[in-house]
C-alpha cells in the first residue's frame, strides 16, 4: 500500500504546474466558501442571540395567548408555579411581562403603541434597556414613568418630563386610562421597536390594566443554559399543565428563522455553483492524469498489478490534490476568520439600516463554528472522490492490448 501512496504523490508532481493550478482553484473555492459561510452563520448567530435575548429561550403564557394576543388571556402571577420553574436545573432566570396595545396621545397627536410592563432591574440585567436611552433616565421600580422609542417621541413631538396619555382595553372588559410622565427616550437597533415600544414599570402597568387585583401578567420569559433548551421546554410544559402554554423562541421568532433559512438556501445555491466549477477543475486534472498514463497503466497490469491497486492509486491522487487545496485553504482562511470573529466589521449606510431592520447591531459578525470548516473541507474531499470515479471506470474497462499498441 505504501508504494501506491508514494506513486500517487509523485505522480502529482510529474506535472507541477497543473497540480498547482488545480490546488489553487480548490484553495480559492474553499476560501470563498469559508468566508461566505462564516459571514452567513455569524450573522445568523447574532440575529438569534439578539432575538433570544429579547424574548427568552421560551415563554410561559395562558393557553392560546400566542395565537390570540388579547389582554383577556392574561393570567395572575402564581408564586408556586414560578418557584417550580425557577428551581428546574438549567433555568438561569425568569422575567415576567405584561404587554398590551394602547393608544398613546400627546397634544393633538395619537399613536398606537405597545405597552410593555417590566421589572426594571431584572429586565435591564438581561435586555439592557438603560444602555439604549439617549435622553432622560431609565425606569425605577414602583414609580410611574415611561421609556419610549425615539420614533414615537419624534412623531408625538414629546420630550422628557412631558406627560403621555395612554388609553386601551383593561382586563375583563375594564377600560385602562392613565397619564404618565416620559422619563426616558431610547434608541433601539430595530426601527420597529423605536416606533412601537413603550416600557413602564410592571406594577404600575398592572394597576392600570386591572387595579382590582395585583399580579396580572401576559407572559413569563424563561432564560436557560445553552444546550438544555429542548429538554427544559418539555419539562416546563409538563410542570405548568394544560392551563399554560410554553412557546419556544423558535416559534416566537419563526419569521426570523424563515428568513435565515431562505438566506441559507441562497448561500447554498451560490456554493453549489462554486463547487461545480471546482469539481470540473479537479475532474479535468484527474482526466488528463488518467488518459496520459494509458500506456503506463497497460504495462503495470501486464507485469501483474491488479486493476484494483491502480484504482486505489488514482483515488489517492484525487484525494491528495483536494487535500493540498484544503490544507492550504484552511491555513490561509482560519487566521483571517479568527481576526474578523474577534473584530467584526461595523456597517454603515444602507447596510447598517438593513441590519437594524432585523433588530440587529449593524455589525458583520463572523462565525468560527468548527462545523463550517469541517463541512466545507468534507465537500471538497467528496468532490475529489467523485472525480476519482472516472479513473475507476476507466481502469475497470481498460483494454491492456489496445493501450500497449499505442
Amino acid at each position, binding site marked *: 500500500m505504501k*508504494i501506491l501512496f*508514494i506513486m500517487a504523490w509523485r505522480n502529482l508532481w*510529474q506535472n507541477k504546474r497543473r497540480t498547482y493550478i488545480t490546488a489553487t482553484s480548490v484553495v480559492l473555492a474553499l476560501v470563498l466558501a469559508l468566508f461566505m459561510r462564516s459571514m452567513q452563520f455569524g450573522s445568523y448567530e447574532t440575529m438569534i442571540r439578539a432575538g433570544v435575548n429579547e424574548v427568552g429561550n421560551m415563554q410561559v403564557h395562558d393557553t392560546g395567548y400566542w395565537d390570540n394576543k388579547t389582554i383577556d388571556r392574561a393570567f395572575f402571577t402564581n408564586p408556586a408555579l414560578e418557584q417550580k420553574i425557577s428551581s428546574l436545573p438549567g433555568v438561569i432566570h425568569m422575567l415576567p411581562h405584561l404587554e398590551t396595545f394602547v393608544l398613546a396621545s400627546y397634544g393633538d397627536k395619537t399613536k398606537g403603541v405597545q405597552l410593555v410592563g417590566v421589572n426594571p432591574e431584572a429586565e435591564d440585567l438581561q435586555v439592557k434597556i438603560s444602555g439604549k436611552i439617549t435622553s432622560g433616565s431609565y425606569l425605577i421600580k414602583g414609580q410611574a414613568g415611561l421609556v419610549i422609542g425615539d420614533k414615537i417621541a419624534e412623531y408625538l413631538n414629546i420630550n422628557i418630563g412631558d406627560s403621555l396619555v395612554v388609553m386601551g382595553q383593561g382586563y375583563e372588559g375594564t377600560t385602562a386610562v392613565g397619564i404618565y410622565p416620559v422619563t426616558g427616550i431610547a434608541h433601539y437597533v430595530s426601527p420597529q421597536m423605536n416606533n412601537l415600544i413603550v416600557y413602564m414599570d410592571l406594577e404600575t402597568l398592572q394597576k392600570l390594566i386591572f387595579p382590582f387585583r395585583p399580579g396580572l401578567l401576559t407572559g413569563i420569559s424563561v432564560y436557560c443554559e445553552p444546550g438544555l433548551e429542548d429538554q427544559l421546554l418539555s419539562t416546563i410544559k409538563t410542570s405548568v399543565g394544560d392551563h399554560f402554554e410554553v412557546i419556544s423562541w423558535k416559534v416566537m421568532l419563526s419569521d426570523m428563522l424563515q428568513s435565515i433559512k431562505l438566506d441559507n438556501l441562497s448561500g447554498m445555491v451560490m456554493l453549489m455553483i462554486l463547487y461545480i466549477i471546482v469539481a470540473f477543475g479537479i475532474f479535468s486534472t484527474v482526466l488528463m492524469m488518467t488518459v496520459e498514463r494509458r500506456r503506463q497503466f497497460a*504495462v503495470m497490469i501486464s*507485469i*501483474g*498489478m*491488479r*486493476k484494483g491497486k491502480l484504482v486505489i492509486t488514482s483515488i489517492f491522487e484525487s484525494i491528495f490534490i483536494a487535500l493540498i487545496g484544503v490544507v492550504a485553504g484552511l491555513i490561509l482562511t482560519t487566521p483571517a476568520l479568527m481576526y474578523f470573529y474577534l473584530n467584526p466589521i461595523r456597517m454603515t449606510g444602507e447596510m447598517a439600516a438593513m441590519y437594524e431592520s432585523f433588530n440587529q447591531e449593524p455589525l458583520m459578525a463572523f462565525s468560527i463554528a468548527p462545523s463550517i470548516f469541517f463541512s466545507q473541507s468534507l465537500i471538497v474531499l467528496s468532490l475529489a472522490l467523485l472525480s476519482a470515479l472516472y479513473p475507476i471506470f476507466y481502469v475497470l474497462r481498460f483494454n491492456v492490448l489496445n493501450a*500497449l499498441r499505442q
Partner: protein
Amino acid sequence: MSIIQINNLHKTYTDTKVPVKAVNGISLSIEEGEFTAIVGPSGSGKTTFLNLMGGLDTPTEGDILIGGKNIKDLNSRQLIDFRLHHIGFVFQSYNLIPVLTAIENVAFIMELQGIPKKERHQIAMELLKKTGLEGKENYRPGELSGGQQQRVSVARALASKPKFILADEPTANLDSASTEDLLNMMSELNKTENMTFIFSTHDKRVMDKARRIVTIDDGKVVSDF
C-alpha cells in the same frame, strides 16, 4: 523439460472489416533455459504470438500450457496473478514507472508479490548489480540512458523469479553499443541463471545471439532451428 507447450494456436481478429488471422495454427514447445528469437516480417504475427504466450491476449483456438497449466482457463484476474508470478516482461520502450527510482522499479514487482521490504530491497540491489547498474539505484528512468533503462527493465523482469522472460523487440530503441551490452548481459543471465528468454525481434544482432530461431510468417511457423 518444456516450460511452454503451445498446441494448434489460433488468433483471429474479428473487429476489423475483414477477419484477420494473426496466428494461424502454431504449435511449439519451449524448454527451460532456451534463448529463443521469434522473428518474421512486420505483420507476420510475432507480437500477437508473444502477447498470447504472455497471457495478454486470449486465443481463438488452441492451448497454451505454461508449467502444465493451460492459461486459457484463467479469468482476467487470475491471468494478472499468473503473469505476476510466472512471466517476466521486457518492453520495446522500456516502460519503467517514471516516478519510481531504478531500485523501486525493480522492487515494485516484488512488493506486488508480497515479499517483505528487507528481502525485496536486497534482491533488487543484487539484480541491479548483476545488470551493471550498481550506483544507479536511486536514479529515476528519466535520468538514465535508454540502455540503462532497458537493463532496469530486465532486472524488473527477473525480480519476480519468472519461469521465462518475454522480450518484445528489446533492442529496437537502443544504439549498437547498448544493444551489444544488453544482449551480452541477457546471454550471461541465461547461462548463469538458466533463465529462459523469448524475444520477438527484427534485429540481426539478437538473432546472432539466439540459440533457437523461430520464424513466423502469415501467423504460421515457417522455420524453427
